[in-house]
């Protein structure tokens, strides 16, 4: 059974090569990069043979903790490949425990898992002087790597379990992830405050060695330092961590096997049309209203919406720790940029429901206007408020006009550019009602290609405002700032109008092709 699951995983990996040349190139590049990183790590680990035990300890414990943290947190940011997730396998009569082992092993077989496993095992290479410790390091490496894989599985399945439960369907489901996303800055903050004390890294390593993240990695060096008791304590912490993570994962998986994603029910009073009753009663207005409903009701959109309050918060964290107040001013333009380019996924998120637009013969321009307008409704006020808020935080009003100019350029220009992009390509996106933290096979290359191209075009579109912002900051002359605002207010809408017009024409021509692709991906 376990072997079958692993074979399935490898088969999926092999078949993903066959999908397209782009995919193959991406996989090869990814593989080469992984090999390179692995090679450097292995070299470093062996080099530690010539370093004092204290140094080896600091590096291995901190590195191990970081990797473990990464495995826990990254799946929330970036969707991980979940070919073998619970719901897919729930129809087969596989005992839960065998399924867990199978998923664990197949997780190690995937590229990130394999790299982590090899690097962890090779921590033994740092202890060539002490063969006994090397053996312990080998065992701890395997345990640490397995913990990593289990941790990511546990986090995603717990998150998915929560996200598909009915109470978390809407905003609450996403809000709960905010503290998790902010975990990084919080830890970074703690770390940077520790930096001010002398000899901070070894003491940080010492602290980490008592936490679930670092305990396992500290065991070999503890033995090497002649502290077997400390090693035993850390082994206990590590074992407890693995046990807890395993239980959480088992719970999440068992839950996902019996909880179909669509198990929700929610009744609204009839006669309430929501935004559909407020916005203009035209095709474009209706589409804008529908998009607004989705932005605030669909977890896939909510995940993108969360960046609006989050980005200023994140940047504010970094400012307080780095003491560079300028960072915080980037919040407005960054949010504008991110909201502008989110539209790239819009048609893909519709999935085959897009058939309604095609069947009703919606003019391409109306489609484009509606989608862009929905983002403007909340995006424009959000960007303005964030920019003023950040300025007020530092009582520094000089850059505000230029920042607003750049933000308008990025938001409106981004919407314009992605209006064209999303009329040209669609890619496999998480289906409506699916786990929003899930990628679909083959999504990445198509998405990355079109995303980077759009960013490039956007950089050109927003170039005047970027230049004016820089000039205004360098010269400190308010005139340039106001000029930037003026240019943004004029050029932004123009670029949006051009994008909508062009995208509309492309959509009129390509809608059936897009629909065919969406059907294929569905």
């Amino acid at each position, binding site marked *: 059974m376990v072997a079958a699951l692993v074979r399935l995983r490898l088969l999926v990996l092999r078949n993903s090569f066959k999908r397209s040349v782009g995919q193959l190139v991406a996989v090869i590049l990814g593989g080469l990069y992984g090999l390179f990183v692995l090679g450097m790590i292995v070299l470093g680990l062996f080099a530690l043979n010539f370093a004092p035990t204290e140094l080896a300890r600091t590096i291995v414990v901190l590195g191990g903790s970081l990797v473990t943290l990464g495995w826990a947190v990254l799946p929330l940011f970036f969707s991980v490949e979940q070919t073998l997730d619970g719901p897919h396998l729930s129809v087969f009569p596989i005992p839960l425990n065998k399924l867990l082992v199978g998923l664990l092993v197949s997780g190690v077989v995937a590229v990130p898992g394999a790299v982590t496993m090899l690097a962890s095992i090779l921590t033994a290479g740092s202890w060539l002087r002490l063969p006994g410790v090397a053996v312990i390091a080998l065992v701890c490496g395997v345990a640490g790597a397995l913990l990593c894989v289990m941790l990511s599985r546990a986090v995603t399945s717990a998150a998915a379990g929560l996200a598909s439960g009915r109470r978390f369907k809407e905003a609450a489901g996403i809000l709960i992830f905010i503290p998790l996303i902010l975990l990084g800055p919080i830890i970074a903050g703690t770390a940077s405050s520790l930096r001010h004390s002398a000899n901070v890294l070894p003491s940080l390593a010492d602290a980490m060695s008592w936490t679930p993240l670092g305990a396992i990695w500290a065991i070999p060096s503890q033995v090497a330092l002649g502290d077997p008791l400390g090693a035993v304590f850390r082994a206990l912490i590590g074992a407890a961590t693995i046990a807890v993570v395993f239980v959480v994962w088992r719970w999440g998986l068992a839950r996902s096997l019996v909880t179909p994603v669509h198990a929700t029910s929610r009744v*609204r009073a009839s006669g309430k*049309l929501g935004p559909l009753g407020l916005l203009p009663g035209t095709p474009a207005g209706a589409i804008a209203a529908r998009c607004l409903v989705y932005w605030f009701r669909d977890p896939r959109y909510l995940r993108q919406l969360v960046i609006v309050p989050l980005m200023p918060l994140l940047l504010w964290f970094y400012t307080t720790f780095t003491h560079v107040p300028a960072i915080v001013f980037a919040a407005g333009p960054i949010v504008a940029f991110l909201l502008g380019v989110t539209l790239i996924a819009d048609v893909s998120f519709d999935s085959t429901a897009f058939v309604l637009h095609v069947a009703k013969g919606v003019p391409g321009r109306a489609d484009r206007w509606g989608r862009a307008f929905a983002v403007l409704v909340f995006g424009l006020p959000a960007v303005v408020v964030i920019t003023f808020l950040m300025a007020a935080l530092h009582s520094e009003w000089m850059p505000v006009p230029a920042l607003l100019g750049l933000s308008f350029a990025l938001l409106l220009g981004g919407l314009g550019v992605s209006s064209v992009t999303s009329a040209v390509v669609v890619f496999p996106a998480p289906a409506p009602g699916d786990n929003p933290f899930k990628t679909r096979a083959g999504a990445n290359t198509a998405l990355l290609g079109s995303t980077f191209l759009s960013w490039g075009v956007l950089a050109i579109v927003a170039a005047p405002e970027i230049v004016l912002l820089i000039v205004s900051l360098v010269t400190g002359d308010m005139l340039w700032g106001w000029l930037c605002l003026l240019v943004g207010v004029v050029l932004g809408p123009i670029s949006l109008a051009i994008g909508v017009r062009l995208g509309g024409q492309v959509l009129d021509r390509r809608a059936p092709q897009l629909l065919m692709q969406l059907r294929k991906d569905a």
Partner: protein
Amino acid sequence: MTDVNPSVPSEGADVAPARVAPAPPTPSSMQPEVPAAAGQHRIDSPEPDPRAALSLRGLVKTFGQKRAVDGISLDVPVGSFYGLVGPNGAGKTTTLNMATGLLTPDAGVVTVHGVDVWRHPLTAKAQIGVLADGARLFDRLTGEQLVVYSGLLSGMDRPTAISRTRDLLQLLDLQDAAGTLVVDYSAGMTKKIALAGAMVHAPRLLVLDEPFESVDPVSAANIRDILGGFVSGGGTVIVSSHVMDLVQRMCDHVAVITGGRVVASGTVDEVRGGADLEDRFVELVGGRRVQEGPEWLRHS
């Protein structure tokens, strides 16, 4: 465009299944079609028939190596209830998608009431209501929102969209579920709300791909009544299905498609030629085998 079938609501519930039974003879305005012989009459003409509700000429679609639709020509008379039957993978869905402007044909012409679908898509689509098989709906909207949305998309003003939505929800017996998200609907309710979305702009032609799949018998009977009402109100309905019994009872015309070609078309009586439609279908399509299955599947 104007309301072609304002009478639809009154037709629905009171007339029981009896009415959907045997096809009335073809309306006199239409020239009788020749049975089963793969359209030996004016379908030969390369020009589509402008009088037909839907006219296909030489439709071809190839996916990779597979020729899904291999030169289909078909005329659907105005006011007919037309069944499109065929085995799985015969090209029914592909044909209907091309006929409704959802899939670009490799070759061929489609006209709806004389309007070329691929040359004037917007004019043509205003006359077609589509129920696409297997496609999602914007199911984060409530049923009511979805129908109003469909109405607004086809360009009507909001008061019209809202009042028609109310009528349709009542007709389809969905008033109680008007405020429920479509994602929480049952399969039958979902089909019904999709049907409402397809009908809201008062199309002259309804193209329904597998409207009865995963619908319980009661909902199916209700939908059948509504469609019957639509036809007697002057509209034209095309349904694809592989449930012969349904087609035989409901439709007055039928075309049998297999391997991307029309093997028979005409009124139901003509096509079945006195036999049961299902037997005739199996005879036309072939592929029937008598087998008992492998030894290990037999438990007694």
